[in-house]
Structure formats: structure tokens, C-alpha cells
């Protein structure tokens, strides 16, 4: 049954990608395709007095210039059905006011990209600049409002409280107060956003090829913004060059391109450049935490209170809303630790900056950083070993399933085992000796840990607690075997680099007793798949893969029935393996599965009624969610002369339950850790006090390269989940979640002798020398 699940199957996707034969949106432009360029606000806050497009229309090659008014002022509004949430409208093209620099106000459609760019330069906008809310401090002050009448606080949730906390803080042997900050960052997919929209007269549809993680949500967004039925929009995600959350929300540009294609009845393409990607698309992770924590003399946490403030930028993204970060943070802060008393307030503040969206990890890089720093601070103050203090606080074997003070039930994990193994591995690998060697060479050096779990695969039982008007969670798969015995699987998830074509095929192949090469995944097309929620939140293998497994299991049952009839044996005795339907205990009797498929389709009249008319099934999965977990350790060095911080060795012990494909899991871990190191040491989106973005190219936004990322050693533990069809747990975000805390702890270990302590990321060379 598990010939393929767990195997190191090379990714089906790799060949075409490595040969440059992938098909991305930019590859799809044809001779008659028009090119779009957006006119964007040069100011962070301004009133639009007038927009004069007459000169732009005169530019050679320009066919059309459209403003929000021309399009009927379409907008999207993301809604959370809670009193503590204030919905705001996001116009697809701003008509009266702009709220961040790079916000789009018009689109120029031209025969080629050059002319579109020239046309955009020629659009004359009369601006009246206004006061700017550049950060959370200014938002709190509320002297100026980003959205009138909101006080800048768009969401304010006291998720948990405990009247005992003041007493606990007053009387505990140790009470720590600290503030933690993480900078605004970009998900920075290698392929930026890109959309090609065209009107199809035959189908009466606008077909939108777009670089998205969420094709159905994009279809819903376009249909809602333009006031048309969903049937008249078809969204197709071709190959997508990464998303990390940046493409799990609906872009304004996607809606505008659809509208333009419907008006012009010609294909229109827009491929953003890196500057647009850094300034006009969404960001994430700009948060601050004011935390009080109490510990007993042995280092056991007694109480925790957090005031969580998120800078959510100018608009609430559709459909997740701006509450996604504060909600996640306030709900999940305690993490793997047993916190007896808990209070959390999560707020989202509007500022004159690009909106934030769920970026890989979504608040968990920050909450893990908070908890892991608190553990180390308490250990230092109490004279307890920094690793051991975690053992005293974490949920231990035998305590699962554990329901925390935050009302979350943690399914079984290997929190202790992963920490023990990490410590053992780095000791065996000589990290402590190397730390001493580096110190002898005149560098500062330190080792840091982080322990965490990652709730993944949220189905509607969990997502519904957020009370989003559009609540994602379930997904549906369809499995259909053709007359030659090969299989098409459809899923509502939408892989964009995760290797789903391979891993889904492994899951389905095992159910049907065939080879993964005989299974083809269709995804990312709203006309071909059932409504589904796309790929984000480490959901696809558990939910999409779970649904595919169920559907394949149903088809396998039909195959067994057919084989039982033809071989004249009992259904329960039929085994599907290696392309054959065999009979348990009778090695000589079997029929090829392809022969069963042929008979079902071409001679179906020979079969009893219940075996006729094709081999297909549709199933859904909607799990409550499941926790994967990991322990990270990192060895860093700090150059006292330049402040340069380098991660030198990285160790991950991770547990995502049943591994479908170790190659894919390792790839996810490595990429995630790289993004986590990036957040800890390199990346930050910056603005000046006027709200002007100042990190607008990859010269200024320091995404690390292979030159900066150290080797990452990975070990696996496998604690199967009882909440998922295949025992797997999602694991797409863990690397990004754990790495920043580990790196920050290592830096603090390296600098401890200097009396320096940092509670923010990224830590820059300049910080070390100040």
C-alpha cells in the first residue's frame, strides 16, 4: 500500500523547469497581446484633484487609458464578522485618495511594454499631498487617519484574559517585561505578479491567466469586484514561480486586467517589475509585542500577557482581512509551552504603506521568537540551562492531545524528542568546540535554539473561528481513471513550486496500485477543478492530498469490485499492486489494472450494474488542523570589526508526520530556513518619514544569496497525525517560523559577554557596533 509514499521520487516538475520549458504567464503573450502599465502614486498620502489622460492617449502605441471612474470604481472589501473589526474598501484603482506610495490610479494599455511605460509617464495627475501615518506610533496617536473615522485601529481583539494575571506578575519569583519587534519584509517570490487576461467569445468568459496561489478566490474576487457571475470568469494559474503568501490574496491589478480585457476584447498582459513587486505588492511581518511573563524559581512559566501590534498598511487584503496577523499571534502565542494563565490583545493598525498579507509563517516567526527569547531570558536570570528550561515548559510525551489555555488542542508531536536529538546531533558534530575555536580566532560566536510547532491544514472547523465572511478550509479532489488505466486527479489546491504533481501522484498511485507516472495532476484552473481554496497555510498535502487519497480509495474500491467479478473471488481478497489486480494468497491469478479499466469503459455491459460507467470519484477533506513541529539550532559568528553576522551551521530536526517525499520535505525546510535567516539578518522593507519606500530594488532589499546561506542539516522524526487522511502534517512554513528565533538566540549567545541583548529582527551589522 505504501510503495510510493515515503519514497524519494524526483520531482516531475523539475525537468521542464530546469530546461526552461516551464510555462509562466510571461511565456503566454501572443502576437496580438496588449501590454499594461500602471500609473502609481508617488505619494504615501494624497488627494487626487484630477487625472488627465489626454497626453497619454497621444503616445504612439497607446490604445487605452483607464481610471477607476472609467471602470465604474470597482472595489473589494474583506470582511471579518466581528464587532472588533472595521471593514474598509480597497478600490481597484484609486479615484479620490491614495493611501500608500505605488498605489495604482490608472492603467495604460498599449501595443508593447515600451509604449505602455511611455504612456504611464504621460498621465498627469494633480495631487494634493496630506499628512502621513508612517508607523504604529503615529497610527496610535491618530492625529491623522488613513481611513476616516477608524482611529487607524482596524482590528482590536482581546482574545484571552485571566483575572489572576496581575497577582501572578506581582508575586512570581521572576517577572520579565520585554518588547520585541520584527521588520516589514517582502515574500519576494522569484517570479513577481503577472496576469494575462483575455475575452473568450465562444465561452462568454474572461479568461485570466495569473500567477496566483488561489485561483478560485481570485475568480470570486474578480466576479465580486466587477459584479459578474463567477461562471463568466475562468482563472488559470500556469506555472507559478513561488508565492509564499504574496499571491494568496487577490491583487487589484488582476481585477483591472480582467476588466480591461473585457472592454478591449483583446488579450492584455501585465508582468510587474521588481520595483513594483517590492513597493506595490503586499508585505508582512511588521509587528511589535509588549510582553510580561512570570516564572517560578525553577524556570516554569506561570503567566503570560502580550500586547500585540501589527502594522497592516493601508488596506485590508481580500479575502483574508488585515486581522490575519493579529488573530494568529494572539491565538497561538503560547505555542509548545504550557502557559497556565494567558492574556493577549491583538491589534492591527492602518498606516500609509502597502497592505500586509499572510507571508509564510504568518505571525508565528514572531510568536516563536517571543517565546524562545523569554525562555532564554528567564534561563539567564534564574541560572537555569537555556536548553533545559524548554524541557521544563514544553508539552511532554504522554500529555498529548493537550488542550492549552488558548483552547487549542495540540495533536501528538515530538517536542521533547526533537530537542533532545538536535542537542545530540550538534554535540556530536562538534559545534561547541567550533564555537570555542571561532572565539579564539577573535570572532564572537554563539549557538541558538528554537523549538516550535506549526499548526497546519486548517479546515473550516478551525478557520470558522476567525469569522471571515469567506471562510476557507475544505478542498475537493476528483480522481478519474481512463480506459488505458491512467489517472487524472484534480484538486482545488494550487501548487506553485511545492512539487504537488509528484506528491499527489505518489499518494494516488499507492491507493490504486499503479505507478506515479500514470497519474497526472490538474490544478490551478477554475473550470477544471471543484471550488477549492488554493495553496497556503501548509494545507495542500493534508487537505488536498487527503481528499485525493479518499477519492482514489473510492476508485480503488470500484476496481476491486470489477476484479472480484471478473476473477470470481471476493472483493476483500483483491489486491491492487504494481499495476495488477491480484488475489490475496493466490499468486498466479491476476488481471492488469489497465484491462479492468478497458472493460469498464468499452464493455461495460458485461459488468454488473454497480461496476459500470466509468471509474471516478469526488471526495472532500476538511480536517481541524494538525501540528507539525521542529527544533532548530544555528551556530553564528559575529565579526567585532564590521559587525558582520554569519550563520555558519544550521541543524533542523523536524516532524511532519508521515513524509510523502523526503526530497520535497527537505527542499521546503531548506527554503524556509533561508527565508528565516533572511528575516533575522538581511531583509527589511524601509520607508522614510514621508512614507516613501526606500528599499525599492534588490540592491537595497537584501535577499540573501547562496553566498550567505550556510549548509542546513536535516533530520526527520515521524509522529503520524490522527487528524489527517494520510497521517501527514503540513510543513511548508516551519523553516521560516523557527529560524529567526534560533538566529537571534545565537547572536545573543555570541554577544552575552559584552552585555548586549537584542530582541528585534533583523539584527544588522550596525546594531552590533552601536
Amino acid at each position: 500500500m505504501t510503495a510510493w509514499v515515503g519514497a524519494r521520487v524526483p520531482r516531475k516538475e523539475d525537468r521542464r523547469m530546469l530546461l526552461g520549458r516551464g510555462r509562466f504567464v510571461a511565456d503566454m503573450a501572443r502576437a496580438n497581446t496588449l501590454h499594461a502599465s500602471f500609473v502609481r502614486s508617488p505619494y504615501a498620502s494624497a488627494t487626487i484633484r484630477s487625472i488627465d489622460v489626454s497626453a497619454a492617449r497621444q503616445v504612439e502605441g497607446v490604445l487605452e487609458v483607464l481610471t477607476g471612474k472609467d471602470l465604474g470604481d470597482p472595489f473589494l472589501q474583506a470582511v471579518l464578522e466581528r464587532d472588533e473589526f472595521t471593514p474598509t474598501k480597497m478600490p481597484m484603482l484609486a479615484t479620490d485618495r491614495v493611501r500608500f506610495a505605488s498605489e495604482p490610479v490608472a492603467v495604460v494599455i498599449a501595443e508593447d511594454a515600451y509604449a505602455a511605460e511611455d504612456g504611464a509617464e504621460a498621465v498627469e495627475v494633480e495631487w494634493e499631498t496630506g499628512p502621513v501615518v508612517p508607523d504604529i506610533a503615529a497610527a496610535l496617536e491618530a492625529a491623522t487617519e488613513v481611513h476616516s473615522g477608524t482611529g487607524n485601529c482596524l482590528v482590536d481583539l482581546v482574545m484571552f484574559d485571566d483575572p489572576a494575571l496581575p497577582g501572578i506578575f506581582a508575586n512570581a519569583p521572576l517577572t520579565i517585561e520585554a518588547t520585541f519587534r520584527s521588520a516589514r519584509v517582502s515574500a519576494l517570490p522569484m517570479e513577481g505578479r503577472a496576469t494575462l487576461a483575455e475575452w473568450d467569445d465562444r465561452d462568454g468568459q474572461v479568461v485570466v491567466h495569473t500567477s496566483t496561489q488561489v485561483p478560485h478566490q481570485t475568480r470570486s474576487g474578480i466576479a465580486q469586484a466587477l459584479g459578474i457571475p463567477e461562471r463568466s470568469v475562468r482563472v488559470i494559474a500556469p506555472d507559478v514561480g513561488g508565492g509564499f503568501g504574496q499571491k494568496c490574496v487577490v491583487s487589484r491589478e488582476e481585477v483591472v486586467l480582467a476588466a480591461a480585457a473585457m472592454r478591449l476584447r483583446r488579450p492584455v498582459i501585465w508582468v510587474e517589475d521588481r520595483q513594483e513587486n517590492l513597493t506595490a505588492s503586499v508585505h508582512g511581518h511588521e509587528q511589535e509585542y509588549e510582553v510580561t511573563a512570570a516564572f517560578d524559581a525553577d524556570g516554569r512559566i506561570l503567566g503570560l500577557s502580550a500586547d500585540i501590534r501589527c502594522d497592516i498598511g493601508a488596506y485590508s487584503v481580500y479575502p483574508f482581512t488585515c486581522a490575519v496577523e493579529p488573530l494568529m499571534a494572539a491565538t497561538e502565542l503560547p505555542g509548545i509551552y504550557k502557559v497556565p494563565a494567558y492574556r493577549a490583545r491583538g491589534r492591527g493598525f492602518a498606516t500609509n504603506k502597502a497592505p500586509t498579507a499572510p507571508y509564510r509563517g504568518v505571525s508565528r516567526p514572531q510568536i516563536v521568537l517571543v517565546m524562545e527569547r523569554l525562555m532564554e531570558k528567564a534561563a539567564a536570570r534564574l541560572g537555569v540551562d537555556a536548553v533545559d528550561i524548554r524541557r521544563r515548559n514544553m508539552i511532554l510525551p504522554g500529555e498529548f492531545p493537550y488542550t492549552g489555555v488558548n483552547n487549542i488542542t495540540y495533536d501528538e508531536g515530538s517536542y521533547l524528542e526533537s530537542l533532545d536529538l538536535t542537542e545530540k546531533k550538534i554535540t556530536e558534530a562538534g559545534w561547541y568546540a567550533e564555537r570555542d575555536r571561532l572565539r579564539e580566532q577573535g570572532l564572537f560566536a554563539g549557538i541558538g535554539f528554537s523549538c516550535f510547532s506549526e499548526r497546519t491544514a486548517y479546515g473550516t472547523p478551525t478557520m470558522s473561528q476567525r469569522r471571515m465572511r469567506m471562510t476557507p478550509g475544505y478542498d475537493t479532489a476528483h480522481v478519474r481513471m481512463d480506459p488505458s488505466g491512467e489517472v487524472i486527479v484534480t484538486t482545488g489546491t494550487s501548487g506553485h513550486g511545492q512539487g504537488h504533481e509528484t506528491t499527489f501522484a505518489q499518494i494516488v498511485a499507492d491507493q490504486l496500485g499503479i505507478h506515479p507516472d500514470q497519474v497526472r495532476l490538474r490544478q490551478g484552473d477554475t473550470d477544471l477543478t471543484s471550488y477549492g481554496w488554493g495553496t497556503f497555510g501548509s494545507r495542500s498535502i493534508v487537505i488536498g492530498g487527503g481528499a485525493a487519497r479518499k477519492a482514489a480509495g473510492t476508485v480503488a474500491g470500484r476496481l476491486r469490485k470489477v476484479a472480484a467479478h471478473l476473477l470470481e473471488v471476493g472483493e476483500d481478497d483483491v489486491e491492487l499492486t504494481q499495476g495488477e489486480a491480484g488475489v490475496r494468497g493466490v499468486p498466479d491469478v491476476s488481471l492488469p489494472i489497465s484491462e479492468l479499466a478497458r472493460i469498464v469503459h468499452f464493455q461495460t455491459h458485461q459488468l454488473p450494474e454497480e461496476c459500470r460507467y466509468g471509474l471516478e470519484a469526488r471526495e472532500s477533506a476538511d480536517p481541524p488542523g494538525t501540528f507539525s513541529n521542529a527544533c532548530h539550532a544555528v551556530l553564528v559568528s559575529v565579526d567585532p570589526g564590521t559587525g558582520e553576522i554569519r550563520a555558519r551551521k544550521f541543524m533542523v530536526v523536524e516532524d511532519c508526520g508521515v513524509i510523502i517525499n523526503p526530497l520535497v520535505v527537505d527542499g521546503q525546510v531548506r527554503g524556509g530556513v533561508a527565508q528565516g535567516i533572511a528575516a533575522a539578518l538581511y531583509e527589511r522593507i524601509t520607508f522614510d518619514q514621508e512614507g516613501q519606500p526606500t528599499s525599492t530594488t534588490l540592491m537595497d532589499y537584501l535577499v540573501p544569496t547562496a553566498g550567505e546561506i550556510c549548509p542546513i542539516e536535516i533530520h526527520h522524526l515521524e509522529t503520524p497525525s490522527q487528524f489527517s487522511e494520510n497521517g501527514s502534517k503540513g510543513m511548508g512554513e516551519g523553516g521560516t517560523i523557527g529560524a529567526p528565533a534560533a538566529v537571534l538566540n545565537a547572536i545573543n549567545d555570541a554577544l552575552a559577554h559584552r552585555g548586549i541583548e537584542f530582541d528585534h529582527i533583523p539584527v544588522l551589522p550596525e546594531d552590533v557596533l552601536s
Partner: protein
Amino acid sequence: MVKYDIPSSSERSEDKDTEWSVVKPAAFTYHRAYDVNDTIAQLAELGPDAKILAGGQSLVAMMNFRLARPSALVDITRIGGLDFLAKDAGGLRIGALTRHRTVETTKVDGFEVLSKAARWIGHYPIRCRGTFGGSIAHGDSTAEWCLLTVLLEAWIVLQGPRGRREVPATEFFHGFFMTAAEPDEMIVEVRFPRPAPHAALTEFSQRQGDFAVVAASARLDLAENEILTSRIVLGGVGPQPAVVDVDLAGQPANEETWRAAGEAAAAQVDPPSDGHGSGAYRKKLTATLVARALAEAAA
């Protein structure tokens, strides 16, 4: 029975005949020059808004941002005979179209600092395309060649409608991409008058291959363990390569001298602040990097 090989899915989709570009500079005309005189004639005809394309590793990026808007480009990369390193009367001549990669891989006695410093330039593809003369003409104050021409007191050889002239590198860089070259002149070669066996360049950036936040270069003449002459040039601390007024003559070549020289250099500069570091941080970097450059130069 006929049996076809099914191509793997990647081989089936070969529909890329409609290549198009997303680079988007403002309109310009492109001209190719085949020798130096041809270049000068074309520049004269096209006027002061024309620019020479000599590798394009900086200029084209600026054009795509529309920060540079030349009316015309004169592509000189096909001109023969300007790609060389040649020993000359004790010194060294480097042709304007010599690729950074060529400098990196050519060891010239007494000029080892050039091949070593080349490793700091961008990344491999940039080093393979960018040219020595192009970098000098661009005049970025953190560029390795700009620093080293000033450090080694090289001469920039220009040719234009008024003939050939040589400008000392110390007078060539006027700050923020401004140089002594006239719009109708082209750099044909750079002349280093004498070897510098004790010279080094070091720099700091967070990522490998980035522009230096601060770059420090140093040259020494040594007799046994004593310094006879010294010269220190910095990048990233002002609009052009900055010559530090620190004379180490007569001092011993040791760590204490390097450290003190670093402190003295830092005290002389007033660097700008930007996203890569404050002025105060750049001063600290200056102290460290000068000391390290001197130590490496003496080694």
C-alpha cells in the same frame, strides 16, 4: 502495432516563439562602432546625450529604471584591440574593453592587487561582461577600479575629437557618476606607472557581490619592517574615491600601526547615511577596513 514514444510533458510544450521583453528603458537609438575613430565620430554626430555602451552592467540597469535616459547608445564592445593587459616600462597598461574577469584571471607581477580586487566586483556574469574602462567611465565612488586607479596613481587615457590626452586618476573622478571625460571622449586605456607589490583592497557589504558599504585600499613601500611610503584610498565615504591624509613613513609595519592608521582615517571622513549604514557606522567600518587593508598590503 505502431508505438509512439510519448515525449515527457516538458518536451511537448515548445511554444516560446513569441519571446518578448519586459525591460523598458525610455526610447533610444542603438549604434555600433567598429573602431575608436568611428566611436568619436558617432559621438560627435549624436550629441552630448549619447552614451557609450561598454558592457552595460551599470548603465543598462539605470536605463531600465529610467534613471538614465541617453538619446543614443554607441556600442563599442565589438572594437578590437582594446582588450589587453600589457607590461609597459615597468608599469602596466589595461585596455578599456578588458573584462573584469580577464583582470581577475591574469596575474601580473607587482600588480597582484588588481586580480585579487577583481573578486570583489559583482558576480561572475557581471565580471564576464563588465569592462575596466566602463567601470572607470561610470565613476561609482565604491567601484574597485576607481579606487585602485587613484591608489596606484594611474593615468586615464582619453581620446576625442581634439586628440588624445591623459588625466591623472586623482583628478578624474568629480563625484556621483561625474568624471573629467567630456561627452565626446572615450576612455581607451588606463596606465599604471609603477608596480605596487604591497597593495590591497578590502571592503564590506552584507551580501557577497554587492556594492561596498565602505571599501578601503592601501599601498605600502616597505624596507624590512619599516614603512617608507604609504597611501590609503577609501570608497563609500563620499562622492568620489577619498585619499586619506595619513602618512605612515618611518613607522613599523605592525598591528598597532594599522590600528592607529584605521582610527586616524576614520577621524578624517564624514560619510553619508543611507539604508546600508549610517555615517557613524561607516566611520567604524573605515577604521576596521583600513587596518585590514594595510595588514594585507604588508603581508
